[in-house]
Every structure is written in structure tokens, then in C-alpha cells.
């Protein structure tokens, strides 16, 4: 299947999601269930990754800043900006593409192969609206929350590592944390989080929804979904950085 055929089917799938729900209460229940699955289900891994990425970031920054004229507080500043700008949104979303993306693709793939999606269609339910829309909206709601949490935990991890290994004092870290803070960086991280959340939920949903075959094809679809989501996240990351962060020439 050509790239344009796949793209066309993906866009049609997105278009097909927009219809009046057959029963708003059932859709709401499904949405809440997906919020719990995506949010609570990924919380553990997000907490662990975030803490360690902040800690490693602090240690490695200190290792590279060998000049005595650079104040120690700069370490905290670098940790803060690295975590907010890149680590929290991008690294966490790449991990979520694996955790959430493969789950969405395999769930929908299994439903397709075992004719559960056909059963819903026969009942007169818009399966794109009922199965895909709640997942995308849930991802758009909870993934940015996870990214914010990740940023906070990352900075906290950096602080603990910095203090624990004697790289800098609590006073230096807190001072650096507040130095030259650019609020737009947080907005930028959130813009990235929303973009990645859409990628993480819609691309695996597409691959899962259109599976044909059996268990092997579900596995393949799941792998493809994760790989393509990761590539799209990196591509979107670069594009957003270019659009929103690069200073105009001259």
C-alpha cells in the first residue's frame, strides 16, 4: 500500500470519528476508562524515567562544566531547561508511544481480528467514534498532565542527585532554578505534549483498527505503530522547534 493510500485512510478514519454519539453516557464511560488506562497505567514508568533523567542530567551537566568561572547555579538552570524543553515532553512521549501506542494498536487489532468491531458495527455503532475518539481525547487530556508531572519530577531528581553527590548546594540549585526562567518554555513543552499525544493515540489506533489477519498481524501492526509514532514524534519535535524556537536570521 502506498504512502498516500495509507495517509488517505488515516485521514478518513479521523473524519469518520466525528458523528453524534449513540449514547453520551456510554461514550463518557469509555472516555473515563481510557483516561485511567492511559494515565494511571503509565504513571509508574513516567515517574521512574522522569526522576532518573533529571538526576542523570544534573550529574552529566556538572561533569561537562569544568570551568571554575561558570557558576554552579548554571547546572540547575541547564537541568531545568533541558528537562522542560526536551526530556519531559519528547523522551516521555517516546516511552509512552511504546507503552500506550502498542496497547492501543494491539487492543483494537485484537477487537478487529476477533470480529468485535464488526459486532459493534452490526449493532449500529460508529466504531471509529466509539473506539478511537475516546482514546484520542483521553490521550490529549492525560499525556500533557504526565509531561508536566515528568518535568517537575525531573527537576526534583536533578536536585536530589546534585545535593546527594555534592555537586552543588540546595541554595545554588534553587537559585539556578529561578535564574533566567522563560515561561514560554513551559508553553512550548505543552504544545509539544499535545502534538505528541495526538500522534501517540491516533497512529496506533489507525494501525490497530485496520489490522487484517491474525495474531502475527496484530504483533506487526503494534510494532509498526510504535516505530512510526516514534519517527513522527521526532519529526514533529524538530518541526516545532524550528517553528517556535529558532530566532529569525539577521
Amino acid at each position, binding site marked *: 500500500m502506498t504512502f498516500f493510500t495509507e495517509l488517505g485512510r488515516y485521514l478518513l478514519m479521523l473524519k469518520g470519528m466525528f*458523528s453524534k454519539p*449513540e*449514547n453520551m*453516557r*456510554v461514550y463518557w464511560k469509555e472516555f473515563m476508562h481510557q483516561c485511567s488506562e492511559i494515565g494511571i497505567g503509565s504513571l509508574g514508568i513516567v515517574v521512574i524515567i522522569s526522576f532518573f533523567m533529571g538526576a542523570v542530567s544534573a550529574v552529566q551537566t556538572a561533569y561537562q562544566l569544568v570551568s571554575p568561572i561558570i557558576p554552579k547555579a548554571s547546572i540547575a538552570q541547564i537541568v531545568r531547561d533541558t528537562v522542560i524543553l526536551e526530556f519531559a515532553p519528547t523522551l516521555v512521549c517516546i516511552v509512552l508511544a511504546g507503552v500506550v501506542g502498542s496497547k492501543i494498536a494491539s487492543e483494537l487489532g*485484537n477487537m478487529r481480528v*476477533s*470480529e*468485535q468491531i*464488526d*459486532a459493534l*458495527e*452490526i*449493532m*449500529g*455503532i*460508529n466504531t471509529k467514534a466509539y473506539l478511537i475518539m475516546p482514546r484520542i481525547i483521553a490521550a490529549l487530556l492525560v499525556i500533557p498532565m504526565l509531561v508536566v508531572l515528568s518535568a517537575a519530577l525531573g527537576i526534583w531528581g536533578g536536585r536530589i542527585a546534585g545535593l546527594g553527590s555534592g555537586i552543588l548546594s540546595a541554595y545554588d540549585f534553587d537559585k539556578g532554578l529561578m535564574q533566567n526562567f522563560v515561561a514560554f518554555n513551559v508553553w512550548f513543552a505543552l504544545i509539544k505534549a499535545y502534538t505528541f499525544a495526538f500522534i501517540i493515540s491516533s497512529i496506533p489506533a489507525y494501525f490497530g483498527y485496520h489490522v487484517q489477519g491474525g495474531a502475527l498481524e496484530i504483533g506487526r501492526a503494534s510494532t509498526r505503530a510504535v516505530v512510526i509514532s516514534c519517527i513522527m514524534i521526532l519529526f514533529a519535535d524538530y518541526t516545532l522547534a524550528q517553528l517556535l524556537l529558532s530566532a529569525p536570521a539577521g
Partner: protein
Amino acid sequence: MIEFKNIRKTFGDKVVLNDVSAVLEAGKCNLIIGTSGSGKTVLMKCLVGLFEPDEGDILYNGINFTEMDDDQRKELRQQIGMLFQGSALFDSLTVEKNIMFPLNMFTTWTYAEKMKRVNEVLDRVNLKDANKKFPAEISGGMKKRVGIARAIVLNPKYLFCDEPNSGLDPQTSMVIDKLIQEITVEYNITTVVNTHDMNSVMETGDHIIYMFQGLKEWEGSNEDIIFSKNEKLNSFIFASNFLQDAKDMRMLEAKGKIDNNRNMDELLK
């Protein structure tokens, strides 16, 4: 009543259905039979709208299904129940919740009213004490019954069953066949069954359509099948010596040479 006219369906260059027409009557078990790859599943999927036919019309009580928009189809589909080959129960829901799902989606009933209806249909398919079990915890025959219960919970006008006996032992198959037949008459449903099972053909086939290589090869009732001279049909239905013998017995019975109730016993003494 369902009527389909000149249905043609292709996948790439392969013609799967070619100019297939028939009328499926209400209150009758309409069977679609044929070898694997003969197009019977594709025909059923065209009838319920899971596949779009390339040509032809499908009429539900005279209303053209192929010309309906999405909303009209959604409305009609609420009158359709379907039992899938693998039952297609929702893995994450209990038996009770599976059956309640269409009620949750399409009714404004209270929980008590929905539970009452769920228990009614579970009772109708002779399935008790399974309410809280998950599909993975019940047998194949029970899954089929839950599938039937879910299909009839909204009192459909049309019931489609895709190979209801696949993977079941002969005794359970007979129970499922009987259940489908009883429900068809009781609710005056237009039932369409896609089957390979010869027992189903002989016992429940009020109206049988035999498909061969994408064409409707033969049409008639289970009584007509005994006297059919169609070679393709005979080689499919009465493939084994045992089934051939059964056919001979039925022919003798039909001609009055043996009485299945009385002199068979005498002859066997």
C-alpha cells in the same frame, strides 16, 4: 423479508459473488451453504453492510439498504442481530455486561429494567448462573448462546448467524440449531444462517441457498434437497457414504416405503 438482487462483489480481479439473487422470508431459517471460498460469508457480509457490493440491490422489507445513508443504516442495524463465528463477545465484559451493552447504547431503561431483560434472554437461551463470568471462562457452546442472547436482546427483525456450529460437538450443535429455529418462529425473525453443518441443513433448512464459486447454484428446502438431481449440490451435501445412506433412507421414507416412527424399528429387529 430480505431480498437481494444481482449482487456482484469482486476483490481485485477475483469475482467472489456473481449475479446472486434471492428472497429470504420472515419466520424462516434461511440457510446459505457451500464449500469454503464459495462466497457465502462475503454474501452475508454484503447483506449486513460490512462489505459494499459492487453491483446489485439489497432490500430490507422493500427499502434499499445499498442506497441508505449512514444514519439510515445505523437505524436499520438496530433491528439486526448477528451471531459471529467466533461469537465476538467483548473480552473485557462479563456475560451480563455483554448482553446489556446494546441496551446501554440504545435504550434509556433503568438498570433494573435492563437486568430484567438480560435475565429474560439468558433464560431463553438456557444459560443460567453465567452472568458474572467472562467470555474466557465459558465453553464454546455457552459463548454461542451468549452471542445469540446479545443478538436478540433488542428484539431484532433480522438475525444473521455466521457458522453457528463451528467448533462445537454434534450434540451442542443440535442445541444451538434448535435454539435458532425456535427463536426464528417465536419472534417471527428473518433468520439467515451461513453453515457447513449437514445436520443443520437437514433439520433447520426451511429455505436453502447453495453457493458454488460465487454463483447461486441451487435453491430450495431441506425436503427438496433429498430429491435434487444437482450433481454439485449432491456431491457437497452427501459427500460421505454415511450421508448418502441417510439420503436414501429419507427418500424411502418420503416415498412411504418405510415409516420412520414404526417400521424402522421392526426392520431393525
